[in-house]
């Protein structure tokens, strides 16, 4: 029974944490992009605009949830839920810190310590594609259908590159468990360089980052919602909380990608001890720090790069990234054998 309540508490903390962080992600995105464009960004709601996410949430909740007459009602209403649920479920297997003991009970900082965690995450992200297709098809709107088709073709193409780019790290750890992958990165090269996978797997890391940005439909690969031609892509017809759910799913997926990138390539919660901070919290701090690097990178890209053309996007994936990923696996295999 105690086990059950501990898990319940972990889930609630995780759930609340992800939603809060996600809400403030939108705020930071607007602030960062504003600064990069010599603007100020939101600053009216609360001190320096800190209440902005709350105001946005309330606004979306009180807007009319609207279903177009020609839409396929059930599919239309299910789509945002189907995008949202897998996006959050992915988080069940992310480790945030080392195990610790409270009152003689060992507690791990992960909701479900699953031994196939890495593929579990990929599987969940592959289910997310249904939200997009159903939204587009269910809306019965030309922009939405076009956006959904493009988006799903893009997402599935980059999923291949994404999956292949992670194989190198699996070979190093010899496990699909995220905890094992982190433990395999303990120690240092030549005394001070951390033994993170990003060094031997620099190619894999670059491929992962690129395909992950395409997976999450973010700039410069945000073609499905290219506002200049497709208005908003698959979620044109959504308003109110249905729209909010797509929005939530997109930002949660960004966080997921950052978490996977930090775990697989930057040593997850590993990091030098901060004085006077207990080890578990130390781990969480490092994990969040590493994740925020990737999040910032996302915003930075968005305000720097123009959007790709669709044919460029597809040929980048199939003609450049796929062969590179296979080559990376081959080289990793040879190096592991002979070095």
């Amino acid at each position, binding site marked *: 029974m105690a086990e059950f309540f501990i898990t319940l508490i972990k889930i609630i903390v995780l759930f609340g944490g992800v939603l809060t962080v996600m809400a403030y992600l939108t705020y930071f995105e607007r602030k960062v992009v504003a600064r990069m464009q010599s603007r100020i960004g939101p600053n009216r709601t609360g001190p320096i605009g800190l209440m902005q996410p709350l105001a946005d949430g309330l606004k979306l909740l009180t807007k009319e949830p609207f279903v177009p007459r020609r839409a396929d009602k059930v599919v239309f209403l299910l789509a945002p839920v189907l995008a949202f*649920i897998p996006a959050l479920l992915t988080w069940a297997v992310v480790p945030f810190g080392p195990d610790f003991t409270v009152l003689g009970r060992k507690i791990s900082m992960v909701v479900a310590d699953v031994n196939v965690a890495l593929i579990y995450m990929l599987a969940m992200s592959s289910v997310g594609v249904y939200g997009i297709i159903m939204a587009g098809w269910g809306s019965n709107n030309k922009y939405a259908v076009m956006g959904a088709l493009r988006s799903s073709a893009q997402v599935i193409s980059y999923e291949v590159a994404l999956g292949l780019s992670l194989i190198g790290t699996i070979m190093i750890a010899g496990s*699909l468990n995220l905890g094992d992958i982190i433990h395999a990165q303990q120690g240092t090269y030549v005394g001070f360089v951390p033994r993170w996978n990003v060094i031997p797997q620099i190619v894999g890391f670059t491929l992962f980052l690129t395909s992950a940005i395409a997976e999450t439909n973010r700039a410069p690969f945000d073609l499905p919602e290219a506002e200049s031609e497709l208005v908003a892509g698959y979620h044109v017809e959504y308003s109110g*909380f249905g729209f909010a759910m797509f929005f939530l799913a997109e930002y949660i997926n960004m966080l997921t990608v950052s978490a996977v990138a930090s775990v697989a390539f930057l040593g997850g919660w590993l990091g030098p001890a901060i004085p006077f901070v207990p080890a578990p919290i130390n781990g969480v701090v490092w994990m969040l720090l590493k994740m925020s690097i990737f999040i910032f990178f996302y915003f930075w890209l968005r305000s720097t790069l123009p959007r790709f053309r669709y044919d460029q996007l597809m040929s980048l994936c199939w003609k450049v990234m796929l062969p590179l990923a296979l080559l990376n696996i081959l080289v990793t295999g040879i190096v592991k054998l002979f070095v």
Partner: protein
Amino acid sequence: MPVSWWPIGLFFIIVAGFAATSLALSKLVAPSRHNEAKAETYESGIRPLGEAQQRSDIRYYTVAMLFVVFDVEAIFLYPWAVVYDRIGLYGLIEMVLFIVLLVGAYLYAWRRGALDW
């Protein structure tokens, strides 16, 4: 007994519950004013022409098919990567054989123009 998996089930129930309640809540709180023009599908301000659920391009099918093939290939690579330490050179050679065949399919698709958009 799937010991480590039940938290995922619990998590699923909580997440689905959250999604359902928040959608229901917004239905309760939000206004709902029906109007013929509003219920029309959005098409940049003009009346919608024809059906949106039209036939799609065959290129989407080709991409999906290639995706299935390479996804299955990736799935064979996961257990291989996990046990790579134990099977060593033998494993490397068999995987190279496996991938070389698929690279053949890949080159064929490239030459046929299936990778061009």
